[in-house]
């Protein structure tokens, strides 16, 4: 197992290399530059050229790539053009809200999706199952920003129970922190719960049709025990895959939700940086996302082995 993990981690190097060079090249090939954004729409060409020079953006692309790569090898992601701080620190600062939101949304999603998915499988084709499928379909189809705006309209504007937008760090108190995250977490959890619950239902139905379930039933094992001990545990493998994907997705920044709720997370950082062409930040975030995906997938693979003794690496 240790060798397997070491091998997977070693594979990160070529992944990051390819991702890094690709994102750098593509970014610098698309039009737009940070100087014209920073100076505003009425800046003259001469002013823009002046600032481009001061920022080193007028150097040949291969030179800029070599400089960036040289810094990267030393573990330096560079300096943000707009944020006036190292990219690594900017990502770290924006990771707090994103990680908080991810954990809360994922917990809410799992709390709803696991029991409802299992019950839907158990009561397959019943009225409950039909309603379940409808809600799940809504969950995966309705964009989270739309859910978010409606949650704001009801819980923040009409009922005044929660803030409209903004992020309160946990250092200001757990209550205000949770209050600032609840609406965006629910908006995200609605979609994620839809995705997970559908997989839980399908995987559980598959397991419930297995021979060993019939054997357990014939031996007189009760419904609850069959569901909890035999069916659910075996249905966890495909569920884990989708949870892993959703976790990596959320950790990479729930772009639209973070923008609607003004959460200063990774998603917001990347949107802002793209619209300003803050190249070092975009490059840094893309590399960060690549690392998150590799690590989450690795974690999921390791958990497979823990859940299913038949899987060995």
């Amino acid at each position, binding site marked *: 197992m240790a060798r397997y993990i070491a091998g997977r981690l070693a594979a990160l190097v070529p992944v990051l290399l390819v991702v890094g060079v690709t994102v750098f090249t593509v970014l610098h090939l698309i*039009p737009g530059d940070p100087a014209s954004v920073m100076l505003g729409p*009425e800046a003259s060409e*001469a*002013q823009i050229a002046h*600032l481009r020079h001061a920022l080193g953006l007028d150097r040949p692309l291969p030179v800029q790539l070599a400089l960036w790569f040289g810094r990267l090898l030393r573990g330096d992601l560079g300096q943000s053009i*707009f944020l006036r701080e190292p990219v690594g620190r900017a990502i770290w600062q924006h990771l707090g809200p994103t990680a908080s939101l991810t954990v809360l949304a994922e917990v809410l999603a799992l709390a709803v999706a696991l029991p409802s998915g299992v019950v839907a499988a158990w009561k397959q084709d019943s009225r409950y199952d039909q309603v379940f499928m409808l809600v799940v379909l809504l969950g995966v189809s309705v964009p989270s920003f739309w859910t978010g705006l409606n949650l704001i*309209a009801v819980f923040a504007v009409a009922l005044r129970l929660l803030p409209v*937008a903004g*992020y309160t760090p946990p250092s200001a108190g757990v209550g205000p922190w949770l209050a600032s995250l609840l609406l965006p977490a629910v908006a995200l959890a609605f979609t994620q719960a839809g995705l997970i619950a559908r997989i839980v239902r399908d995987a559980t139905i598959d397991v419930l049709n297995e021979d060993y379930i019939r054997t357990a039933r014939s031996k007189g094992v009760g419904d609850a025990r069959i569901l909890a001990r035999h069916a659910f545990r075996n249905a966890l493998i495909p569920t884990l895959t989708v949870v892993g994907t959703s976790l990596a997705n959320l950790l990479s920044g729930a772009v639209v939700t973070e923008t609607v709720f003004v959460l200063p997370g990774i998603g917001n950082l990347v949107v*802002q940086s793209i619209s300003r062409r803050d190249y070092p930040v975009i490059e840094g975030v893309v590399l960060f996302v690549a690392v998150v995906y590799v690590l989450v997938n690795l974690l999921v693979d390791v958990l497979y082995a823990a859940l299913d003794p038949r899987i060995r690496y």
Partner: protein
Amino acid sequence: MRQRLTRRELLVRAGVGAAALGAAPFAEPGGRPAEAQPVRGGVIRVATNAEPGTLDWQASTATATRLIAWHFAEGLFALDRNYEVKPLLAEGYSVSPDQLRYTIRLRRGLTFHNGQPVGADDVLASLERWGRLSSGGHETFRFIKAMRRVDDRTIEIELARVFTPLLTNLGDPKQSAVIMPKSVAQAAGERPTTQYIGTGPYMFKEWTPGQRVVLVRNPAYVSRTENWGGITGRKVAYAYEVHFTFVSDPQVRLDGVTTGQYDFAVELAQDMYPKVKANRALAADIVRVFSWPGAVFNKAHGVFTDQRLRQAVQYALKPADLMAAAYGPKTFWQLDPGLFFPEQKGLYTTAGSEFYNHQDLSKARALMREAGYSGQPIVVMCTKDYTWNYNAAQVLVPELEAVGFTVNLQVYDWPTLLSRRTKKELYDIFLTGFSPSIDPTAIIFFGPNWPGWYKSEALDALLAKWSATPITDAAARKAIMDQIQRTFYTEVPVAKFGNGFGLEAYNSQRLHGYTSYFDVRFWNVWVTR
């Protein structure tokens, strides 16, 4: 012999009427009446639409920069409520009879936010940097022969030839000649500074990227006493802090001001007006001196190098349709031929109106035939980042096609459009909006190096004449201004659509003393909770 002005003469020259001096402290014309007794303390929470790239107001023309920066940074001169230039840090100035030497004296007791007194050396270093960084400064310095320190709080500017817009340019809010400590100006050099040290009623406290900028009251602020409004005159920082929170979604800004999470929502969508009006706790501020949209022609490459085709486009347009598409209800736009806004009384003219809002398709087609247009595709660039921009393009394209232009509409994100518009071979027209200018020499598209590349001997001659005409000669200036605007309509560097208005909203039960202006200001404003 140099002409010395007394303080009183200075005020008269600067256009200040006795009526204005005697007016009540918080009543501005067209604004809300004076409200209850101001209250000190509290926090003014503002939801703004965009995070600025920098808060260095010398370096950036962006609105997002200006509306925060002018709370802590100030220049020698600034605009009053009528968009006319008045002294701010300057106590006064005198002009030599040949109009080639300006002596500018600083007010007594001015200090920077770091406690250091404001001196002539700081002014010289700041102005030199402004001359290098800003296009207005660059233009101004073409006329400046020398600048020198006379004493601790007096400088002298010597001009190579007469340039009457000097003080106007020093007070231009677009990329302002704000005064910073000499050490900051020199350390920043060509790059935007990150040391935001000014002289204003509020001081820069912190900037949390992606979240907000916090300003805090400057307890040592030395205010003017005049009720000039605008960006100069008496300024009082009543609130303890002002928080500018970046909220990109206009619906969330409106929701935030509705629930009281924010006191003020900057730049809402015009179609939110009924919601704002229906809420008794909210006050709507319709910003009439806001922006005018237009189509900028590429005059350096392609078919629109021919003036007749630009005129043809002008005849093809129906401004009312374009403005309705861009700004929605009639409350938020007006058809107006002016290069300046009607509220800018010293500059506004309707000259050339015979060319504006006179759609004539047969005239347009005749001009196209005369110019030999034979269906070459024209590239029109617009952006979806600003709804009005894309919506206007949806009307512009069929109007151009109706007279026989073959149009290739290209939609980009704003940074891409900003980049592509600097490349002569890539487009024929791009759409943009122009924020108010305060002098014809400061109109950005009159510059030969700005995208569109307008070069006109006739205009240059008129601008030179304007620059040599004394500000006191109102009749001569009016005649030149008429000619400038007529030239704009005959040479058509830009086809103007109309004047668009902005919408802001604030909680009138919490926020008091606010007066409408072309961008938001929070001095002389207080909150009650």
